[in-house]
């Protein structure tokens, strides 16, 4: 084999190995994305005929002035603002417990993993039962604490809290796993040294664990912000396929879904999708920026 052939092969081979990935990326990510972007500028777009009335910002103007969309934006925002910090905080506690060599931890390790391997819908139905005002487990427990029953499902204003509780529970395992892997990357020698100097567990947690875990915490915040911003499937099992008991709990993705599958208004659905994308993009960028300043070493 000549030298030139060899170097040519050298260049082609990696491209061949990579091509399935790029092929998939182009077909399933890039092409749809560009398509959505194009459709979002086409007013009254018809998927079957491919016809449209106008090329312009009409869809965006409609969506941004639509009360339902603004409400969806607000609901989604509240959901993200509560779900992400609460789940991160809880996961931090659980991950820390799991990282210690405590007795009976194996059982717990299986338990916290459960939501990941079960269907969200099935579990959602269980939660629906638990949220039941009269005989649900949650109100039962609250009654032991002398708290009167809360109308989780049948009082519209409470629906958002119901969704947040379910959402926190849903992303907790994944968050715990990420944080746990971060914790396990911390050299245990730091703990040994600090303990030798007489540091309390809390001091170690605050001055060593948290700073060394901060890159992982940042990652968790970004990933969870993105995933919770897409809240939608969580609505179905709890509220019987409706966005809240009185259609009061539209989320952005539910709004898009509604425009697309129910109203067949593809242009507007696409415009809303692009807006969601831009918001997430901006959020991610700013979080990365904050994280850079946050980084301790």
């Amino acid at each position, binding site marked *: 084999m000549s030298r030139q052939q060899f170097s040519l092969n050298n260049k082609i081979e990696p491209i061949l190995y990579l091509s399935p990935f790029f092929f998939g990326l182009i077909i399933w990510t890039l092409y749809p994305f560009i398509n959505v972007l194009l459709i979002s500028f086409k007013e009254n777009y018809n998927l079957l005929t491919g016809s449209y009335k106008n090329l312009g910002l009409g869809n965006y103007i409609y969506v941004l002035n639509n009360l339902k969309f603004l409400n969806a934006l607000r609901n989604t925002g509240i959901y993200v603002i509560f779900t992400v910090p609460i789940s991160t905080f809880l996961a931090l506690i659980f991950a820390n417990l799991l990282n210690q060599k405590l007795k009976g931890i194996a059982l717990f390790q299986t338990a916290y993993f459960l939501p990941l391997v079960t269907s969200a819908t099935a579990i959602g139905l269980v939660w629906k039962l638990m949220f039941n005002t009269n005989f649900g487990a949650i109100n039962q427990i609250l009654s032991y604490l002398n708290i009167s029953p809360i109308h989780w499902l049948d009082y519209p204003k409470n629906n958002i809290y119901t969704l947040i509780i379910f959402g926190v529970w849903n992303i907790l395992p994944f968050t715990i796993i990420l944080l746990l892997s971060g914790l396990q990357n911390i050299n245990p020698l730091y703990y*040994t040294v600090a*303990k030798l100097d007489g540091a309390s567990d809390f001091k170690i947690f605050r001055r060593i664990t948290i700073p060394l875990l901060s890159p992982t915490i940042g990652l968790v915040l970004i990933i969870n912000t993105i995933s919770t911003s897409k809240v939608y499937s969580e609505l179905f099992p709890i509220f019987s396929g409706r966005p809240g008991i009185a259609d009061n709990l539209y989320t952005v993705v539910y709004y898009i879904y509604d425009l697309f599958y129910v109203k067949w208004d593809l242009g507007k659905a696409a415009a809303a999708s692009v807006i969601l994308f831009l918001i997430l993009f901006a959020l991610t960028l700013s979080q990365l920026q904050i994280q850079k300043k946050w980084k301790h070493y």
Partner: protein
Amino acid sequence: MQVNLKNVTKKFNDFKAVNNFTLTFEEGELICLLGPSGCGKSTLLNMISGIIPVTEGKIFFDDRDVTNLAPQHREIGLVFQNYALYPHMSVLENISFPLEIKKVEKKEREALAVEMAKLVKVDTLLDRKPAELSGGQQQRVAIARALIKKPKILLLDEPLSNLDARLRLEMREEIRRIQQETKVTTIFVTHDQEEAMSISDKIVLMKDGVLMQVDKPQVLYDNPLKEFVSTFLGNPPINTIKGNYNNGFFEYNNQKIKLNYHTNEEITLAIRPEAIDFDEENYDFKAVIKERFKIGKEELLMLQFNDLLLRTYATDELNKNVGDEIGLKLKNKGVFIFDNKGDRK
């Protein structure tokens, strides 16, 4: 503070990592725990620090029994092999962290940390993070952090093994200097005999969890009580020949060395390289020069004796070449006889 070990043993399951040590480390001394890898040095050190519990025996600091005392109450400073500096803290924070734990006020602890930094000569690097320091500088910071609480004992586990050869030389002198300035009782683990010989007041030489000999470095070198001690110390290493003593001669494969000894038995003859003289008339044995090579200012000579190679130093007057046979005489100092159990005779 004086450290007393009384019959200290550590068992991992049935394996004795440290076997029945009775020892005293005097106040203000620098003691080296020396021995080959896996001989139990770290295990012994960790028992003194309290990181691992003692299986049998007792440990005293002065008269106080600390066998069951938690490490944080033993007033010790520890330096690990890879320093374990907190990567997210600056040099100043690292050094002062032990005082932060003790809730010493910020101003006071930082003043003390600066003082310590001056002692170990990192006072110009206070704002740096550990990742921005060289290995030797990290080492100094680790020592400062271990010293800031004014411990009664400083424990160092192979603190120099991550450094390159030159830095090791420099840092071992630094450790000696810091130890002499602070006069803190220091226990230093190493498997490098040269390192131990050069800085310690006393060497604890161990093998397979068993104490071989404890003494000043020079005593260990000049007067080893076990064959292992004689072979472990010294560079170039000692020459050992296993053979039989028969009426005035030591015999190895029918080749003889004139030797003064009292009983006819199987022995090991150990000869330090510097304990061989050249003497063409009144020699104890003969050998052939196999190789000569210069190392620095000294010239090393390899001698073929039967199927063995013996090491010695050439003198300026030696006018023999490779391949020549040469008469050799043993000096009194540096020649040892060990029985077949490895004990000195």
